[in-house]
């Protein structure tokens, strides 16, 4: 097998001690910067790209791969420990991960995230190496109507992250959808809800909203609860490591997360977040402990974390096979390739196999390095929670604003951070879930644009929405996802009706 021998060759090159050192520096830098709220993998790679400049291509590429995977991974740590996602793909991780950390199980949560990321990264990188040409065919077959159907499925399945009250969950979601309207409508160039403020024309940044609602909202909430003192966090209870039961509950979630995340990452208009939403919903449906969801279910950390790392590898599929940069991160990666005078494209696999396989080998090595670096650090990370709160939260506020200031130092952006932070705080106080707001902001524009594109291509024919096998299947799944739980509830009506009555009165 030619591919395999190329991979072995790539691995043997990358095993050079000097190059391993580059890999280590890469993952360390990537993780360190990726931990910061608001600085995702794209900005991390963009910032650190010049650092790789001037080294030999092999070393730079390896460092680069390390930064990419490190940046992707770094977001989960703060998500779990401090309820402040480092980037939008880690939002779902915070839901269960932070609950675990609060119950003193931060160690196992971090471990399942690290090992899940490793396994997903490993499988997805191998899939990238051997399946990329096939995966990309499916990805290209996805047209606007298929994306629209995928968004519908995401909307419905992600509602399982809404918490107990359907009313509050829907209100949160629609607040997110309203915020998504702000800015220039991409398809016609008209400004909506911008009120003449030029800074609003580009809409509300997902990272700004996520950092504000999660990191700042959390800080306000903890400060506000100081009086009652019921926000005690236990740093460690039991072992820092995963128990046998944790393993048993995690491994399937890792694999499912990988299977969901990789193809969605490969979709040109997919995005890592959607994989995490779907993975979370799948775990909640399939879990034997559904009652633990919302209170720290380990599957809810394992699945989405695996999904977001798998989709990071998936993003490279269109980049390496077609030269398509399908995300901000991929666009920066492209710039990185160009730094060495390489144009990724349909011919890269043919014209420059050493390089492609070298990169894939580097990704594998970076992935291992990440595990080696992070597992021993878990004990240390967990101790973050033992820092006295005034210093800890003061530090969180500094880093939360640093991300925004670094990306766009405009007072308007910072004012938005403050306003959304207070909004997140008030919503927490009154029991409205936060995640749906961010979900609405992410999915809303995607769904709207794809719907309008699909209809425009079909010149207004609504039937086009079910006109492809893909879209019809996905919409059928959405209907099932909506109807089946309802039917089940009707059947087990005893419990459900009493619950309904409780809510009505």
């Amino acid at each position: 097998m030619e591919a395999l021998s190329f991979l072995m060759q790539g691995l043997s090159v990358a095993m050079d001690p000097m190059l391993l050192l580059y890999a280590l520096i890469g993952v360390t830098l990537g993780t360190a910067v990726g931990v910061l709220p608001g600085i995702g993998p794209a900005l991390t790679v963009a910032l650190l790209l010049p650092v790789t400049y001037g080294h030999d291509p092999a070393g730079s590429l390896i460092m680069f791969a390390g930064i990419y995977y490190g940046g992707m991974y770094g977001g989960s740590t703060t998500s779990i420990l401090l309820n402040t996602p480092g980037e939008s793909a880690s939002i779902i991780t915070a839901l269960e991960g932070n609950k675990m950390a609060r119950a003193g199980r931060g160690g196992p949560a971090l471990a399942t995230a690290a090992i899940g990321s490793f396994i997903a990264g490993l499988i997805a990188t191998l899939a990238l190496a051997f399946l990329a040409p096939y995966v990309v065919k499916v990805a290209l077959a996805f047209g606007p109507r298929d994306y629209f159907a995928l968004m519908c499925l995401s909307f419905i399945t992600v509602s399982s992250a809404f918490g107990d009250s359907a009313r509050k969950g829907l209100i949160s979601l629609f607040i997110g959808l309203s915020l998504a309207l702000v800015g220039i409508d991409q398809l016609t160039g008209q400004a909506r809800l911008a009120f003449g403020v030029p800074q609003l024309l580009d809409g509300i940044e997902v990272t700004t909203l996520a950092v504000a609602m999660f990191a700042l909202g959390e800080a306000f909430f903890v400060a506000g609860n100081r009086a009652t003192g019921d926000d005690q966090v236990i740093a460690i209870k039991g072992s820092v490591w995963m128990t046998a039961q944790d393993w048993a509950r995690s491994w399937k979630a890792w694999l499912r997360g990988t299977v969901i995340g990789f193809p969605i990452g490969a979709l040109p208009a997919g995005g890592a977040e959607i994989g995490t939403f779907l993975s979370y919903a799948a775990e909640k449906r399939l879990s034997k402990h559904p009652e633990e969801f919302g209170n720290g279910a380990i599957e809810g950390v394992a699945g989405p974390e695996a999904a977001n790392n798998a989709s990071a590898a998936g993003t490279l599929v269109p980049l390496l096979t077609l030269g398509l940069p399908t995300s901000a991160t991929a666009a920066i990666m492209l710039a990185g390739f160009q730094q060495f005078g390489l144009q990724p494209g349909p011919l890269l696999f043919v014209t420059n196999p050493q390089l492609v396989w070298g990169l894939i080998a580097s990704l594998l090595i970076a992935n291992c390095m990440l595990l080696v670096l992070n597992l021993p650090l878990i004990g240390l990370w967990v101790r973050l929670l033992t820092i006295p709160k005034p210093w800890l939260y003061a530090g969180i506020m500094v880093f939360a604003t640093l991300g925004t200031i670094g990306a766009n130092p405009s007072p308007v952006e910072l004012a938005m951070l403050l306003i959304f932070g207070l909004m997140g705080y008030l919503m927490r106080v009154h029991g409205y879930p936060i995640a749906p707001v961010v979900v609405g902001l992410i999915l809303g524009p995607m769904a709207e644009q794809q719907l309008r594109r699909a209809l425009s291509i079909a010149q207004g024919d609504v039937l086009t929405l079910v006109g492809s096998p893909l879209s019809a299947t996905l919409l059928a799944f959405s209907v099932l996802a909506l109807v089946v739980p309802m039917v089940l509830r009707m059947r087990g009506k005893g419990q459900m009706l009493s619950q309904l009555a409780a809510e009505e009165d």
Partner: protein
Amino acid sequence: MSGYNPSQRRPDGAALAMAGLLAVLGGVILWDAARLHQTGGYSGVGPGDVARWIGYALLALAVWSGVAAFRETPVRPPRQDAVSVLWVAGGLGAQILLLNTAGFAIATGLLFAFTARGFGKRNLALTIPVGIIFALVVYLVFAGLLKLTLPAGPLEHLFLGK
């Protein structure tokens, strides 16, 4: 539910306020949507249509919230310490106002100190210098080593020698 007289109980104020807010938000969106040119082109769905759907959904949610305010038992929110929250928010406000004049370190140092104040470290004479030094280190690492463009003030110029 039947035979129950809602007036015997005070309505849930928070849910009522939410109903009001949603109604206002829905109204603003509908007003804004009406202002847009309907250039839906071939799709038949223009930028205003989607906004309008969301606007109507918000109005419906406002009604639902309003009804729930009278029917559901209000969940008492946890007691909040408003002064602490204001200190943290004030820290952010100070940072926004000072960032581009006083530079990253001073503005962020104040944010640090005010946040610590909100969490119970009252001694600003200690926390402000600590915060400024901390922010300066952060500045030197991120602006110096990573070339992140952060607003510079007198302190930053002093340390970067520019």
